[in-house]
Each structure stands twice: as structure tokens, then as C-alpha cells.
């Protein structure tokens, strides 16, 4: 049976990590084996007592002491309350939930495309793939330099990864524009075996289409889709994508699954809808 009761965790530390974003260090009071098996791309429900629960991804998955980290951007009343909490506060935790990134990246050429806070669910994957992928390339886009997140992780990746950054509004002399605009330069004549993408949905869809045209099969292009979630168990209904629920069937989907779900459901975009309003 589903257990909808959170387990306690302690807010151990937090530091500013991008515009309106903080990187929280958390500790589960009583870590379970399932917590230690959390995979990059999975998520947990964070309860801020009095303000409800919301889904966040792991930047660093729980260790044996139950310590893990999560990046949170201040965007609503729950995160507003979270940012005001004292170190040592008790929070609630349910997880790990959902499906993470694909596991079979060993020996593959992996391309990671991230936008904004979409870098967070990819951080653990990047650290794992740097050890076992045949080739790892990362491109990260943000609106402007101040909006970039995970500064400490990026500083590390800059040293020893094939890593590019771009901003919509860049500093003079720096790379600018969408990550998609730089994919040809990044890839040259190569076709990656797997593309993992997380960021604003238009960026993910544009990235997927670009990679598809370059010859990457849709089943090897992975997206992490953000949806409103409450239960994390496929019951409350909020995170529907066609006939699937992102909290249990996602949040990672390969592009073929995404296209099949949206086509079967006859889904159309808000932009299409507004043309008919």
C-alpha cells in the first residue's frame, strides 16, 4: 500500500546558488535502503509543515548517513517558507519517486543539454557518466550569468569535462544564445548515442527535434518533464501527460514515448489553443 506519510529530515545547511536559488543540504533522520538506491533524475516530495509538499530532484543522492542535497528556486509560497527556515528545522520527505535517467550509458557517447534549474536533475548523472561514459559532453544555458545555478559543481566540471556554457544575455565576449544554437559546433560530425535534456519545455522540444534531425533515434533522446505533482503515486491526477502520470511513469521520458503519448491523446499546445480562442 502507498504510504503518504512523510518521514522526518533535518535542514542542515543552505547556501545561495544562483538567482533566487539556494542549495539545501538535508539529512534523513532514519535513512532506508530505498533512499540509498535513489537514481539521478528521480525526485522526492519535500514537506514544509504548514505549506504542503512539492517535488524536488536530488543534486546529490542520499549517502549512508542520509545526507543529500537539492537545489530550490524561490517561486511559490512553499519555497518562500523554505527559504525562511532556520538550520535544524524538521522537514518531511517521501522518496525516491519516479523514474530517473536511463542506466545503460556505459561506453556510450552522452550529450547532456541543460537549461536554467534543469541542470539540477542532471548533476548526479553528469558525475556518474564522467566515470563510465565513453564520451561526455555537456552544454548548459541560462538566461544570464547571474541566473546560473550549481556554481560549485560547474567549477569542477569546467576543469575536466567537455563542457560549454551559454546565456541568452551573455557577458561581453562570452557565448550567447540557446544551447540548441551551439549543438552543431559541439558535436561536429559526431552523433551521440544518448541525449539527456532538462530545462524549459520549449528548450527540450527544440533540442529533441534538433538531435532527431542529426540522426539520434527518438528512443535515445531523454527529457525530464516538469509537472505539478502532489501525491507522487499516480493518484491525484495533476501531473498527467496524455495517459501517463509523470510522478510514476516519468519524470524522464524518451522522446518517442513523449511523442506517442501526446499524439494518442490528441494533445495540443497552449500556443495552438490560443490561436482558436
Amino acid at each position: 500500500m502507498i504510504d503518504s506519510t512523510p518521514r522526518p529530515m533535518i535542514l542542515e545547511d543552505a547556501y545561495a546558488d544562483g538567482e533566487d536559488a539556494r542549495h539545501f543540504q538535508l539529512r534523513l533522520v532514519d535513512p532506508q535502503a530505498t533512499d540509498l538506491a535513489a537514481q539521478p533524475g528521480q525526485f522526492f516530495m519535500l514537506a514544509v509543515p504548514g505549506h504542503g509538499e512539492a517535488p524536488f530532484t536530488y543534486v546529490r543522492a542520499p549517502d549512508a548517513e542520509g545526507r543529500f542535497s537539492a537545489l530550490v528556486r524561490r517561486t511559490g509560497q512553499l519555497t518562500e517558507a523554505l527559504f525562511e527556515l532556520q538550520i535544524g528545522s524538521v522537514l518531511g520527505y517521501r522518496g525516491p519517486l519516479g523514474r530517473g535517467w536511463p542506466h545503460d550509458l556505459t561506453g556510450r557517447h552522452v550529450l547532456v543539454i541543460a537549461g536554467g534549474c534543469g541542470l539540477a536533475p542532471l548533476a548526479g548523472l553528469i558525475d556518474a557518466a564522467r566515470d563510465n561514459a565513453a564520451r561526455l559532453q555537456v552544454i548548459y544555458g541560462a538566461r544570464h550569468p547571474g541566473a546560473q545555478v550549481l556554481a560549485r559543481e560547474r567549477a569542477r566540471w569546467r576543469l575536466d569535462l567537455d563542457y560549454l556554457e551559454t546565456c541568452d544575455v551573455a557577458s561581453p565576449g562570452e557565448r550567447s544564445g540557446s544551447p540548441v544554437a551551439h549543438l552543431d559546433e559541439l558535436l561536429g560530425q559526431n552523433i551521440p548515442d544518448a541525449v539527456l535534456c532538462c530545462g524549459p519545455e520549449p528548450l527540450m522540444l527544440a533540442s529533441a527535434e534538433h538531435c532527431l534531425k542529426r540522426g539520434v533515434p527518438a528512443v535515445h533522446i531523454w527529457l525530464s518533464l516538469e509537472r505539478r505533482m502532489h501525491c507522487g503515486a499516480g493518484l491525484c491526477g495533476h501531473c498527467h501527460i496524455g495517459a501517463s502520470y509523470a510522478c510514476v511513469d516519468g519524470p524522464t521520458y524518451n522522446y518517442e514515448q513523449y511523442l506517442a503519448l501526446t499524439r494518442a491523446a490528441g494533445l495540443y499546445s497552449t500556443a495552438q489553443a490560443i490561436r482558436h480562442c
Partner: protein
Amino acid sequence: MLAAHKLDSPERLRAHLAQGREVQEMRADGQGGWHWQNLAAGDGLPFEPPPRPPLTSAKPLFFAEREALFRFDGGTFYGCLPEIEPKVLFGVSACDLRALAYQDQFFAQDEHYQRRRRQTLLVGYDCGHSCAGGFCTAVGGSPLVNQTQADLILRRNGHGGWTLLVASQAGAEAIAALALPQAPEDWTAERDADLAQVRAEQGAQAEITAGIAAIQAASVEPERWEALGLRCLGCSGCTSVCPTCSCYAPLEQREEGGALLHERVWDSCLYTGFQKEASSHNPAATAGQRVQRFWYHKFGTAFAERFGAYGCVGCGRCDVVCPGSIGAHGVMTRISRP
């Protein structure tokens, strides 16, 4: 083959089942409404099932409109589960039982729902005629109670009396002490005749069949959904009365004494903010997108395959309550037009 008994009166059966169980039955409120009522001990009023599905289905008796999930006392989270006494739902129509079977699958891992379900004996009721607006036969259902979806099945027989069909072990055990006589063997023919009668009364329901086909082919254009969306007030009438709708939202509040109570309350996919995220991104920002979602959830192939049935049982409640006339018939007529 079901065991069939001759029953002198449903009231006698009801009084017998009331021993050790709470009994709930639909009763008229004298103002045109019908509601599930807990019957007092010794209640002897005649069993009179409502002439058409009342707006309240059996759904809220299992999937509560509002209930606590957990409490937080400042240091620890405590799960809240309902304590349920044995009960019997007396006289549930085939469509509502079919919806309950759908919910049984959907909430299979939900302990709140299942605690209520495990403690409830279901006494179904065969409809001999179609209710006004009903279309159960057009969506794979039947006016006759499916024997896998109830414990006992009540039906009026052609001799002016009653027949009781035993559909489960729990049902057989519940009536063993009554030592009811066997029913005349013509009950199967009578059921066949009832089904034929209701099919004839409901007719072809061509717009329902064509609408389902259009949804499954994903051939309804966005402009048609958006036109339907203009008629949606986002009032949640359809989702509240629909016996298979199951969406919910969290609600958190502080109790006396300072503890926090986290509840779930019914929600509606037709509400503007149903999918709106904290960032303001809303994948279902327009009413047309939300109306489309509602009907895809009811008739989409993937859902039908997963549940072995449509998420619409043909009760017609949405047609009754929708102020914009976009209940099942209103929508299916509009999307099936060339």
C-alpha cells in the same frame, strides 16, 4: 452460474443484513434529491430505488470528499487512517457498481479507500428499464449488475416478487441463515429480456459511439475543443458527480493545539489551476485543453486498455449538472459532427 433465491421482500433481506452492519440506502429527501442514508435500527420503510441515478454516486462512501492523510506535531509525522465498521450498501445500480470496480483498480494501493471497501458488502440492483438519459449499453455496460462487481444482486421478477442472486462468497455467507428457497429457473431469461428492453429504450446512441471513435483517433481539431471550452465554467459539477473521477488536492491547516493536519480534498481537472506550476507554467492553460483532457481520460484507448473498461459508465449525471450543456451527450454530439 449464480445461485438464485426467491425473496419475499427486500426489506426482510435488509433487516437481516443489518445485523452487525451499518446499512446505507438511497432515500429521497422530499425535494427531488436522493442521498445515501444510514438506516436506523429497525427501519422498515419499503425499498424504493431511485428512478434514475441520483447525483451522489457510491464514490464518496469510499473515496472521501475530504480526509486526513497525516498529522505533524512539530517533530514527527503521524499517518491517519480511517477506522471503518462493517457496512452494507443496499440497492446500488449496475452503473455505479461498474464505476466502483473501476475505482477499486485505480485505488488498489490506497489504504484509505481499501479500508472502506474491504468492510462493505455490496447489494446491487438490476434495472428493468433505462433511466432517462442513461446510456450504459453504449459504453460497454449493462443495466444488469455484473456478478464480479457485487456480493448480492436484487431484481424484481416477472411474478411480482423478487429474486436474489448470490455473486460472491461473502454474499452467500451473509444470507446463509435466511435459508431462502431456490428461485424459479426463468430468472436468466428474465434478465436477458431486461437487457434487451433497456437496449431498445436507449437506442443506438450513435453520437456516443462516433465521439468515442473520434477521441480514440485523436481526430478532433483543437478549435473544436476550444469551442467546447468556451462552454466550460470550471464549476467542477461534472467531476464531482462523475462516479469514476478521482483527482484530489492537498489541504493543510493548523488544528487546535498547534498540530498540522494534511488532508486531501476532491479536485477537478477542469479548474484553471489544476496543472499550473509555481513558475506559472500551465500545460493545460485553456478550458478547451482541460475539456479535451477530461474526455480523453474517459474514453482514450490507453486508459480503456489499462482498466478493461471506459472511465464512463453511461449514468448521464454530467449531462444533468453541466450548466454549459457539455456533459457526455453534449460533447459527443459536437465532436462527432463532420
